[in-house]
């Protein structure tokens, strides 16, 4: 018991310095497209639930409140369906920035499982708008995952901000793993390389169970430096939660999401 408490204390200490990069709830889908959040977590290859799932979420960033006259927030709505080895999903996400800029992202996810192996792809065209112009931008990613009894390892990458007219393309590759329902709850680690910024970053997150329905999420990200803290509530068909994440310079952001799934 003492060993378990000591390990928990270390992990909590780590988590207080970092944070979890996912929206609370199931290992669902739309959190992956949320601005400020990583994409791999919610790729269909990583989603294990069967049947259908719908999720709605909102993220307000860096203290720019959702009701202020200069918001920086993202609203999202997504759908996911899995039957047999086939996975499909999609969603829409709307980013409003400072009353100056809007971005609406539509995403389509497709995935396929082969025994323990899963692969999925996501294509996300987006419409960006400022007062005087509207344009479109595309992004896409693929992810391979291999599932083990209590863990999943994954690797993938994507291209972002693909636009014929500019040289703004950037690539990200990611590799990571998630270890579930073990002695200390669930853990995850992701290493990502951002080609444009020539920068590696690492996410470490931990989920503790507090009773039958409640969980605590926490984690850290190295670049940019984030600390994540969240609370989720879930049963077999519903989940909801909220999360705060602290950027070292820009301050606190808040996220909330709810999910519902059915067979």
């Amino acid at each position, binding site marked *: 018991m003492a060993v378990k408490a000591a390990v928990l204390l270390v992990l909590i200490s780590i988590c207080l310095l970092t944070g979890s990069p996912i929206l609370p709830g199931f290992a669902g889908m739309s959190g992956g497209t949320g601005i400020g959040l990583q994409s791999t977590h919610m790729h269909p290859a990583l989603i294990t639930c069967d049947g259908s799932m719908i999720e709605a979420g909102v993220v307000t960033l860096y203290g720019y409140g959702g009701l202020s006259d200069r918001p920086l927030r993202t609203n999202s709505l997504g759908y996911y369906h899995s039957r047999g080895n086939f996975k499909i999903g999609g969603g829409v996400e709307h980013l409003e920035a400072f009353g100056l800029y809007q971005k609406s992202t539509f995403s389509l996810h497709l995935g396929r499982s082969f025994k323990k192996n899963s692969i999925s792809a996501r294509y996300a065209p987006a419409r960006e708008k400022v007062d005087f112009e509207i344009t479109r931008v595309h992004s896409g990613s693929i992810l391979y995952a291999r599932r083990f009894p209590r863990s999943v390892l994954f690797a993938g990458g994507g291209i972002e901000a693909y636009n014929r007219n500019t*040289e703004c393309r950037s690539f990200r590759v990611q590799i990571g793993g998630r270890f579930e329902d073990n002695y200390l709850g669930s853990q995850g680690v992701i290493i990502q390389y951002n080609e444009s910024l020539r920068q590696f970053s690492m996410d470490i997150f931990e989920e503790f169970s507090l009773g039958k329905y409640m969980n605590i999420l926490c984690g850290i990200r190295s670049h940019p430096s984030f600390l994540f803290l969240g609370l989720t509530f879930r049963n077999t068909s519903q989940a909801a939660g909220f999360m705060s994440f602290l950027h070292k310079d820009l301050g606190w952001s808040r996220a909330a999401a709810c999910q519902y799934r059915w067979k």
Partner: protein
Amino acid sequence: MHIFTGPAGVFLMGSILGAQIVITEIERNPAGYANEIPGGNSNKYIEISNTGFDTVEIVGLSVSNNVQSSYITALRDSLDEFCAHTDQSFLAPGQIGILLDPNYTDEANDRPYQFGSDCVLFSTHTRTFFSDFTRSSGVALQNDADSMYAVVADQDPDRYDGNERFSFTAHWGNEGKTGSLHRLFILRDSSRYREQDRSPGKLPDYSQGMLREYRYEDRTQEAAVAVYIRNYSRRADTAAVWENDSSIGTIKIPASGEAHRIFHLPKNESEFTVCGAYFCDSLDISSIWFPAEKVFISEISPRGGVNWFELWNTSTMAIDHSLWTVHKGQDTVSLPRGKIPAGGFAVFSEDSLSLQVENLYITDLFNLGHYGDSFSVEHTNIPVDAVSWEHGDFDDWDEESLHRRSSDGQWYIGPPSPGGYVHSGRDSIGVVVRPEIFIPDGSQDRDSLVIDIMQPTSLNEGTCIIYTARGEEVRRFSFQGTARITWDGKNRFGRDVPRGPLIIYTQAGGSLRKNEAVLWR
């Protein structure tokens, strides 16, 4: 007949014929020294226009500057090279006349003006009349019975006592070295004059015998553009009115008659175009209208050594402030010509500032009271915004500015940030980021992101970091004291940063500031 038309003190009275004659431009202070030209002051002039439909005999009238009067004579010297009429005693309907200094035609004078091709040149019988036509002089046209046809003066001449000179101090703009005073509107009742470039013998929006004017019309229920057209020719016309590419109506213009019609105001950057058979005017809608509450006084600096104030245009269209004035008590100051860009700022100062500021206009701004004052800004007769302050409302107010972020927002103390805004609080640094949307394509005025950092001391070192909305650092700068940082939209590896929101984080001397911008490509 007696028509009194406004506080600037210009009125018409006399016969019907007299009421037709309008003084449309006066030049009292031409560049150059009087002793450079024989006779001196030879390039001053008075422009008059016959806005009626009857021919008016001009020769024989007298002109007065209230120090001396002189009969008007026809100019008999040939000035054919300027394509103007000479040796003509009358003004036909719609015709423009110029009263020139008799010395203007002296061979030693370089005769600098290019007159309108159809104007008529007159002169004064008294050769020294224009010597007394100085920067504060008014002017009046009179007939033999001393009734006045047209007057430009500070107030009704009846209110001057017998020994007092009537004068005109041009609250609406003093003549600069290249400008003269122009009547703001000719066909309607505005009697205000303001400084514009000299254009003797030429009226704006006047061609082929058609004189046009476009004015804001404040209807009870809605704002509108009033179109006035006076046709001095003998041909009728029909003008088509377009808003962008859509026809919104026509105006029938009778021969030797006038037309007047009101249209809904396109409250955005729509192009308002009026085209007849012989003219086509594209109207800059912001020259007559501004989006209410979207343009407001956002910062005042009555204590920083140099008085200045800032206007913030939060609308999506550029706003022309050429006809705007500032009023404080009995004082009126014209704002210089120019436009406030969409989403941008304009700063009006009595002197240059130590800070680098875009859209800075140096103007004859009156002193703002340290302990309390008020002033207002108007667009012709339309209130734009007003501000008043009292020292007691702001604790520990030292030399900072007063700021606000919206037309109905609360004023708060903050560091000076001309050309930008600061958040409320007592930050020791001011950071101004512009433009809000910048486009690093190398071809436009939004080509780079300019970050101006203002600090009270030059010793503080600081860091400015540009973050994407994901919180990723794309560029970092170091600075000391007051500084300007210019960013080209590339990260530290020279790669273009994708479109999207940016947060500019600045810290120095223990103060932190966050500013926002959008990168667009």
